[in-house]
């Protein structure tokens, strides 16, 4: 049997897109760079200890005293490892990617809750996006956006978006039928239905989607160090590739600390019940 020329065909497609759509890709690139810079400026503006106090305060309000103390100590710990600058860079990527993933994902989830055909089309695509090994996104991202933070953010958006779409869709579909009927029977317009009934009632589920989206972003941003995303991921990567076990371990610890803080912060109180 002759070898199937799928690889060659794909290369051809990528080449075609790269050449013919160059303008679009560089516009996207520029746009995302601006966002990353903005995020980084904001996060690195306060000294680490001020940042730590702010996070602890938010954790105290949204979650518990324990989490607040953990956040405070965690950030001091990261600084103690000299990894605060790398953490800032990682957080900037996470926030940029998550923000874009949510801005696209939540409306998409709302639309697919309202339209069964759209839902039927989206479902396999989302499955595919989530089950593909994360590395697979890295290569086309590099081809279109070269290496660096931008392709890292792009592949993170793709990887992290599915739960936002899925859980928004689920949350809205789970609103009890009688409440929808009540809304209709009082003459709600579609946007009143959405903003006064469906979204508020779906909010806990949507927040679970946001939480998952952030956690997936974190894991992807770490992996994306392979294409030059920098940050904590590259600390681990350098450690591993140069056999500096201690350095890799410290980088790994910092990732875990950040992961726990982000997770608890976005879970809030509602999901703990």
């Amino acid at each position, binding site marked *: 049997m002759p070898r199937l020329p799928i690889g060659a065909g794909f290369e051809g497609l990528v080449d075609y897109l790269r050449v013919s759509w160059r303008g679009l890709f560089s516009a996207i690139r520029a746009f995302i760079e601006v966002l990353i810079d903005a995020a980084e400026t904001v996060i690195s503006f306060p000294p680490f200890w001020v940042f730590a106090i702010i996070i602890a305060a938010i954790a105290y309000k949204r979650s518990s005293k324990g989490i607040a103390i953990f956040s405070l100590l965690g950030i001091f710990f990261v600084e103690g490892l000299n990894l605060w600058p790398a953490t800032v860079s990682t957080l900037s990527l996470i926030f940029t990617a998550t923000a874009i993933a949510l801005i696209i994902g939540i409306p998409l989830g709302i639309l697919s809750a309202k339209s069964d055909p759209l839902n039927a089309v989206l479902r396999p695509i989302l499955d595919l996006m989530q089950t593909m090994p994360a590395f697979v996104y890295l290569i086309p991202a590099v081809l279109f956006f070269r290496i660096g933070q931008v392709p890292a953010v792009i592949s993170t958006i793709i990887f992290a978006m599915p739960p936002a779409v899925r859980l928004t869709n689920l949350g809205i579909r789970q609103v009890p039928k*009688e409440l929808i*009927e*009540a809304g209709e029977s*009082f*003459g709600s317009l579609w946007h009143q239905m959405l903003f*006064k009934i469906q979204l*508020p*009632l779906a909010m806990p589920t949507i927040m679970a989607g946001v939480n998952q989206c952030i956690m997936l972003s974190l894991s992807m941003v770490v992996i994306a160090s392979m294409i030059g995303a920098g940050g904590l991921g590259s600390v681990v990567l350098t450690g591993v590739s140069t056999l500096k076990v201690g350095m890799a371990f410290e980088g790994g610890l910092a990732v875990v600390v950040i992961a726990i803080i982000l997770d608890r912060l976005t879970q809030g109180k509602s999901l703990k019940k």
Partner: protein
Amino acid sequence: MSKLIVNSLYKVFGSNPKQGIKLIKEGKEKDEILRETGLTVGVNNVSFEVKAGETFVIMGLSGSGKSTVIRCLNRLIEPTAGEIILDGKDLTKMDKKQLIEVRRTAMSMVFQNFALLPNRTVLANTEYGLEVQGVDAIKRKEKALESLILVGLEGYEDSYPDQLSGGMKQRVGLARALANDPEILLMDEAFSALDPLIRSDMQDELVDLQQKMKKTIIFITHDLDEALKIGDRIMLMRDGKVIQIGKAEDILSNPADEYVERFVQGVNRSDLLTAADIMVKPWTTVGINHGPRFALAECKKHGLETLLVTKEGRILSGTVTINEIKKAISEGKTTLHDITKEDEVSRISPDTNIKDIIELTLQSSIPVAVVDDDGKLLGVIIKSSVLRALMSERGGDNA
């Protein structure tokens, strides 16, 4: 005058509903159609009229199409065919905008499981209908508070639904519907989720409220006792069809077929019950030689408009009304002789059959008196004791 006229309403669920209607018109039954085509006939040629200010009850077993009918009225469910005429305008022909206007101003719905928004306070729930209409915050709060007071929920404005009991939740549901000041209230098994005692209270309150409000109410229930207590007229449904429409006593005394008869079975089975079994002691009576001032005090004490008057040996003389008592006082009369009316009150013997009592009690606004052969007052029959008797007779069915 008819507020609402429903003409030949059909609803067929499934992918090709028109085909279902064709089959119905060919004389096929609901289960045949389901078996052959997979279409569910929800409502089959239903017609009825509801007068302004009337409480119209739709009754039937589960699955008989009650909810589908009531949801067709505000088009939460699109009818497959038929006309729904509200104040002369056909609702089924209205466009989206007109329909929303009708839902906002003409009809409000109360739901079986309350359908309150859990993230909103009682007040904010009550305001919902006004809020979507764009009524300004001050005015809608004022109106919402008014209707909360009407249903007896003053002081609970800031509570959340999950802090309330079932009965209170449904009061919020009712207040939310009333806040819009609709002409028509649609109530789909509004009390069915409540415990029997609370349910009975709510029924009483609805009847009281209705005397003040004079809304047009369409009330769904699967419970005969509730239908009898609340309804001016009752429509019985089975398999999507109307079986009988009439006043309570028509349905009890002339059931249209065995289905209705089975519904009112308790009444027939209670053939053996007599007045003596269900009569109660009157709240109070006055002697004919008593002065009108004493009679007035008794009226006030018991909250009665009419008193039973007896003479020596507890022989029933008749009744006096509060207005006549007041008149007698101003005229300086010292006894009740002149103002006692003999014929206002119905008298029955203790062995009267319950079937005949039902008609009498439903017709008269004052209790029916039970007297022996000498005219001695033995007790009175009030509506609720008749209902209670029927209810306990039918206890097995309610389980």
